[in-house]
């Protein structure tokens, strides 16, 4: 028993590559945050944001400790605990509607003493655990049909529905895409995939017609045609692209990005930190960052492939999936490849909830890697 629960003593088992890359990305993130928020120094109502890079360091330390703790626990315990955690998570998520603090038209936050936190973030690893539990229990050899996937998709659908009502398009996308990524490692019938695509298309249409708020629609519209409405939503996306392009090959230099320093970037500390980084460090700096994220994603797949049970493999894919999808969507929207949906850049964006969630996910991955 001790062998399983306290395997932490085996120091060499810690995945050093994973840890180094995570710390590297987080450190670059803090440095970038310093530059990003320097624009707020003496900037009236946002002056309070000028020192958040210090807070971010605290969160990184707390998050790393939390990740160690999660890694220390044998991931197989989570298989048993998953339903309790999941239900608990859903309940807290519902609490948002009662206690929420309104931020720009969408209620996502819960105030707890002097902290505010975002339950929808912490829900991400819980969905991963629940779906992984399902995949673990379903060890048939024949390919799955669409019906077989109803249960795991329902695990994603419940928090998705709750989050959509807040409303928060980005987070719900992450739930769904992560769940789908996890399901993709099992064998699925070709017809099921095709039907799935068909259903998605229909649902998207219905969502567009009846489910989405006007501002969400506008974001997608502005993505499809950014020149059409420069004054509004697309303004943000275009300014981010201008910042990135302004970086050129080698960048404007640290603290020298004019788009950032002059306040042309919206929410540069949370939604568009990459634009700040790209403007100041250029194409070469960006390549380094892309390689780091790419490594992180590929490394979690490697860990999954070396897991010794289905649950471990699914958890690694899921936790890695959360990070991959968030990174892809955040970078993609900064570059104008994807619509602005408001997801954070893992380990890079400012925000305690986001940072802790990402590090918990990495703790899970590490836990799997330590026990292969």
């Amino acid at each position: 028993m001790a062998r399983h629960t306290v395997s932490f003593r085996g120091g060499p088992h810690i995945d050093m590559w994973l840890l180094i890359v995570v710390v590297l990305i987080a450190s670059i993130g803090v440095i970038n945050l310093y530059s990003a928020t320097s624009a707020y120094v003496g900037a009236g109502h946002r002056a309070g944001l000028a020192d958040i890079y210090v807070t971010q360091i605290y969160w990184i330390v707390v998050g790393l400790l939390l990740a160690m703790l999660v890694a220390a626990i044998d991931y197989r315990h989570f298989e048993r605990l998953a339903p309790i955690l999941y239900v608990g998570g859903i309940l807290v998520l519902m609490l948002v509607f009662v206690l929420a603090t309104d931020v720009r038209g969408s209620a996502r936050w819960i105030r707890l003493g002097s902290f505010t936190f975002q339950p929808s973030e912490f829900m991400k690893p819980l969905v991963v655990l629940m779906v992984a539990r399902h995949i673990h229990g379903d060890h048939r050899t024949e390919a799955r049909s669409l019906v077989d996937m109803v249960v795991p998709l329902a695990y994603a659908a419940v928090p998705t529905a709750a989050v959509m009502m807040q409303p928060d398009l980005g987070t719900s996308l992450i739930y769904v895409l992560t769940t789908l990524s996890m399901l993709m490692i099992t064998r699925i019938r070709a017809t099921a995939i095709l039907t799935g695509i068909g259903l998605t298309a229909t649902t998207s249409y219905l969502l567009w017609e009846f489910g989405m708020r006007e501002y969400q629609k506008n974001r997608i519209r502005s993505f499809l045609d950014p020149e059409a409405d420069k004054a509004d939503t697309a303004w943000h996306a275009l300014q981010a692209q201008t910042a990135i392009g302004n970086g050129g090959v080698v960048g404007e230099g640290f603290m020298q990005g004019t788009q950032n320093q002059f306040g042309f970037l919206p929410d540069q500390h949370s939604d568009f930190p990459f634009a700040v980084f790209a403007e100041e460090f250029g194409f070469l700096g960006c390549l380094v960052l892309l390689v780091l994220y790419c490594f992180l994603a590929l490394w979690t797949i490697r860990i999954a492939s070396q897991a010794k049970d289905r649950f471990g493999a699914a958890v690694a894919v899921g936790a890695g999936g959360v990070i991959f999808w968030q990174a892809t969507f955040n970078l993609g929207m900064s570059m104008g490849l994807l619509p602005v949906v408001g997801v954070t850049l893992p380990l890079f964006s400012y925000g305690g909830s986001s940072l802790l969630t990402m590090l918990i996910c990495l703790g899970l991955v590490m836990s799997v890697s330590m026990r292969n």
Partner: protein
Amino acid sequence: MATLIQRSDVGEFRKRYRWLRLFVVFAFLAMAVRLFVLQVIEGDVHDAQARRNIIGETRLATTRGVIRDGLGRVLASNRPAYDVHVVPSQINLEETWPRIAQVMQLDAETEKRLLERIKGIIQKGGPRADQSTLLSVDVSRDVVATLETHRGDFRGVRVSPAPVRSYPYGELGAHMLGYMREVDAEILAEQPDAGYRAGDRLGAVGVEHRWESYLRGQRGFQRFISKKARREHVEALQKRYLGGDHLEDPTPGRDISLTLDVDLMRSASDAMRGHLAGAVVVVDVRSGRLLAALSKPSFDPNAVSGGSGKEAVREAFNRYYSDPLKPTLDRTISAAYPPGSTYKPFSALAGLEGGLLDPFGRVDCRGGYEYGKRYFRCTGVHRNVNLHDALVQSCNTYFYELGSRIQIDSLAEVGSRFGFGAATGIGVNPEARGRMPTRAWYTRRYKGAFRGGFTLLAAIGQGATTVNVVQLALAYAALANGGTLYRPQVVRSIETADGTVVQDFPPRVRRLVDVEPRHLNRLLTGLAGVVSDRDGTAYAERLEGVDLAGKTGTAQVSQLAPRGSDQAQVQYFHRDHAWFAGYSPVQSPEIAVVVLVEHGGGGGKNAVPVAMKVVADWQRLKAERLGRKAEAQDE
């Protein structure tokens, strides 16, 4: 531990990881490519955009050149005026706005409309909310004073100087001067290098339009680093992005002196009082310079040049364009009329040159002339007339007789030599070139059926023959000065703002008309007789002391009244045009005068008095000015 799960089969997953890896690599490759495009390929474009974001530019207004008349009196200048703007994002709608509305004395409706617009801009957000939005143009001095002295109380309100073009003489000479209009989208799109921006004003019509490039001057600019820059960065940023050329002073526009004489213009305007429409042109026969050019009815360029706001301008234009008398039409140049009997001297010249006219030969006028199956009427029964009598009494029959003998092309040839049927080259406003019909023209127009009757009509300045008023004035000037056809001149010189002459325009001769003095003298004697002989057509209206020679004309009108005219209007529009064309003094001519009273009826009765008054005033002005000069020399 029994509760822990059993090792399960992970073999099912093995083949799937490859696809996940492939997907991840593909996703990051796509991003790398996108970054390459943004940062390396399109880098310059974004760099330029980012620079535009942080570098502000203040345009330094220039002053438009002043237009003066021949004696230095200001015809068009700039009146200081102020516009009020608000920056929507900076304005306090609860506290500041009601005070603004009160100070500016906005009525409830306007106030509500403006408030809605500002609210709309704030709601929409984006950069528009940080830019000035125009609230009101040309506000009163009191409003400016209040807003400026209590600047602290009106956060977000800006008062900016926006000089308004002003024409102190109002309607007088408006067609020659022109007016100002806002630059339109077409010019902005087609001439991006001309330096106009939306909201700029440019000259429309007349001298304002034609000499725009001289008058407008060159705007200066001042570039600066955005106010958002932190103080310690400003210097470095300036060095990096602005270089040395961030300030350029504006160059004021050139002043223009015209050949016109406001006193004479006003005299013409006074003389035309009592007539609805027409034109008066006075030209110096020794230079072709226009001393007066009046087109009636006129418009007030102050009303359409934007000082009182867009609505007022639109209203004024609606009023002018719905007027059947077309006040915006320049009747001196942009319209062609049948010259009637004022054309007779030129027909006579064609006859004399062709040897078809014996100046002493007589024609018996019994009130008309039979030609083929048609009967051509005369203005009366003149009995036995020679060339002199025919000019003095304006006998048509004499000229019908000439028309029956002469080729129409010979008439046209002499007309063309005097500049008819072709542009005068005045260079201001579009020209109606008029028409000298030839046989070829009639053949084209009437599909081969040329009839001799056409020539009879052409000989008395009717039929298809048309001229514009300036053409006729210059042609009479050529008769008076012995055959020099000048190009009509309106702009005398160009000066800098401090009065230094940059360019002086000498008179330009269009052509030396080859005409035999003995023929010319016969004509001039006839023209003198029109006024001085007891049976002359202008004799009854002559004024004591006015030294004038010339020819009356009563031109039949063939055009129809505008659609929708009532009975009285139809009657008006079918009435003949009254003409007088002449020169003064008779012995050594200095000016040529042409008066057209549109639908004025008989030329002798209606046009001659106008010409008499104008010439009387010209003589008085000349004497006064000579006297003043003599006085000045004495002292």
